[in-house]
């Protein structure tokens, strides 16, 4: 395997001028939201840093993260894979397969010990020694642990790897666990979403490549640049929310007018993601833009906060499905009934007592 080329070398080998290279650097720094003063730093990084080796593992998942990733437009996925990173192992995208591919993974782990990035898509079933997800003849649990041991950092792609997603929704039959429950001693970037937005995925990689370190993370381990505000905060239907103009049914006039979907169970007010800002498919649309309430796919346990079309989740309480309001009203009703009963007994006792003292 040849030594990893730098960005500048890749440009050179393809016959592109230095001018093009510098243009590209400026564009990258603009798309990362950097000050012009940082441009020399970007140029320097692109000239001197070899491409970052990445091992991309697939566990218990649906590959929607990869599907999203390959549709990235700024930068396009081909640029990321060919130029920025050196995607050495990805069983979905590689040409190689089987023993040949596993060989590559071991080689990278040895040659770039402590330098490569481990990207994990999907989560890890832990029940029964992880037999519910086998990759290359070994359990995914072992593969992840083995590959993470010498990684510089871990990127957790999607809701699965970040928080668990549908696999670890109740009752979680395979004991599926997100990556941070398996790997404890490595820095982990969580990029939640089902799938995450393509530009968010490539944005994270670009950041790691350019600066050689992980982006700034919030309290939940997500990159602040993309997950610091809620869908709701930048939603174009926010004016209808503030006005109290809510869609009350999908077959109403209000739906056609594009009013707020809050009452249709929209989880936008509790979901941290960039959909309302970056949008999907080269900025074409996003769920709310297409008239559907946000289901909160980038939030932990979003499958358990259902149903999707009500504000208040059904919770399991004493073996029944109920809501917070029902529990509350039953408790208040019980208090009122208890008070009434207690009052009745007090009255009876008092009458008895009065009669006794009259005697």
């Amino acid at each position, binding site marked *: 395997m040849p030594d990893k080329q730098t960005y500048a070398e890749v440009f050179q080998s393809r016959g592109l001028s230095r001018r093009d290279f510098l243009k590209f650097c400026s564009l990258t720094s603009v798309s990362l939201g950097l000050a012009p003063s940082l441009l020399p730093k970007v140029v320097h990084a692109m000239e001197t840093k070899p491409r970052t080796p990445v091992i991309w593992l697939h566990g218990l998942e649906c590959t929607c993260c990869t599907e999203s990733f390959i549709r990235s437009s700024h930068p396009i996925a081909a640029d990321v894979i060919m130029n920025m990173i050196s995607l050495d192992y990805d069983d979905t995208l590689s040409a190689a397969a089987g023993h040949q591919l596993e060989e590559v993974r071991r080689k990278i782990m040895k040659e770039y010990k402590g330098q490569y990035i481990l990207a994990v898509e999907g989560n890890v079933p832990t029940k029964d020694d992880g037999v519910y997800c086998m990759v290359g003849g070994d359990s995914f649990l072992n593969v992840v642990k083995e590959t993470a041991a010498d990684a510089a950092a871990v990127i957790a792609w999607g809701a699965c790897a970040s928080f668990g997603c549908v696999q670890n929704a109740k009752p979680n039959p395979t004991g599926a666990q997100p990556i941070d429950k398996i790997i404890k001693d490595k820095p982990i970037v969580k990029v939640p979403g089902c799938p995450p937005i393509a530009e968010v995925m490539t944005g994270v990689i670009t950041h790691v490549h350019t600066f050689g370190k992980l982006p700034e993370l919030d*309290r*939940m381990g997500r990159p602040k640049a993309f997950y*610091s*505000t*809620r869908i709701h*905060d930048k939603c174009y239907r926010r*004016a*209808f*929310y*503030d*006005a*109290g*103009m*809510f869609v*009350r049914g999908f077959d109403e006039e*209000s739906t056609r007018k594009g*009013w707020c979907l*809050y*009452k249709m169970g929209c*989880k936008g*007010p*509790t*979901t*941290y993601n960039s959909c309302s800002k970056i949008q999907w498919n080269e900025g074409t649309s996003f769920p709310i833009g297409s008239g559907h309430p946000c289901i*909160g796919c980038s*939030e*932990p*346990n*979003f499958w358990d*906060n259902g149903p999707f079309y009500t*504000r*208040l*989740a059904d*919770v399991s309480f004493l073996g029944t499905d109920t809501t*917070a*309001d029902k*529990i*509350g*009203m039953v*408790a*208040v009703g019980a*208090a*009122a009934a208890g*008070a009434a009963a*207690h*009052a009745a*007994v*007090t009255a009876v*006792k*008092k009458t008895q*007592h009065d009669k006794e*003292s009259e005697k």
Partner: protein
Amino acid sequence: MGRIIEEIYVWRLPVRLYHWINAFSIVALMITGLYIASPVINPPLGEAVWQHNFVMWRYVHYCVAFVFIGNFLYRMYYALLSDDKYAKFAGFRPWSPGWWGKPFREQVESYLFLRQDEPNYVAHNPVAALANFIFIFCGSTFMILTGLAMYAENRPGSFLDAAFGWILPLFGSSYNLHYAHHIVAWVFPFYVIMHLYAVFRHDIVDRTSVTSSIITGYKHKVEDEAAA
């Protein structure tokens, strides 16, 4: 009826003010809170840009919430730093096994009709003190902290976010935080019913004018009927 033999000034003005501000804030917060969770009024007509219906409900909820918080802190300050012996929670010592002993047991027995006589207390009896601690102190603290954490979500990176944002991950997600705030809100109507019942009952059974005492401040000791 027994004669009034003693007037005791139990609830001083700061305590009475606290009580009523607290009562009105809780009612306002409960109503606006339930409305925010489920806006039932029909949507207004016209352009959204001229309407502020829903935002007003939220605004009132936040304003009253800050009154509620200020009032709560003021009551804590008054308890700790005043010389008002009835306002200091001095008798409330649930960490000591002695507190759960005879007086508490007697009061519970009295409520369960296991004894004839009512133990007499000038301020709160032990059972009432415990209920106040659980519902008003713990309930309010929980609602204030979760409320501020949600309020901080509107302002990422702000002082409020730094001060209360750490609460959100404790609940797992923003949704769970909202849910917890919603469900715990129900302890307040629950408590209000128990509270009103207990007050009216004590007023009738003990005739200590406990109901009017939260307006006038005075409780009465009446002559025992049996002795009359």
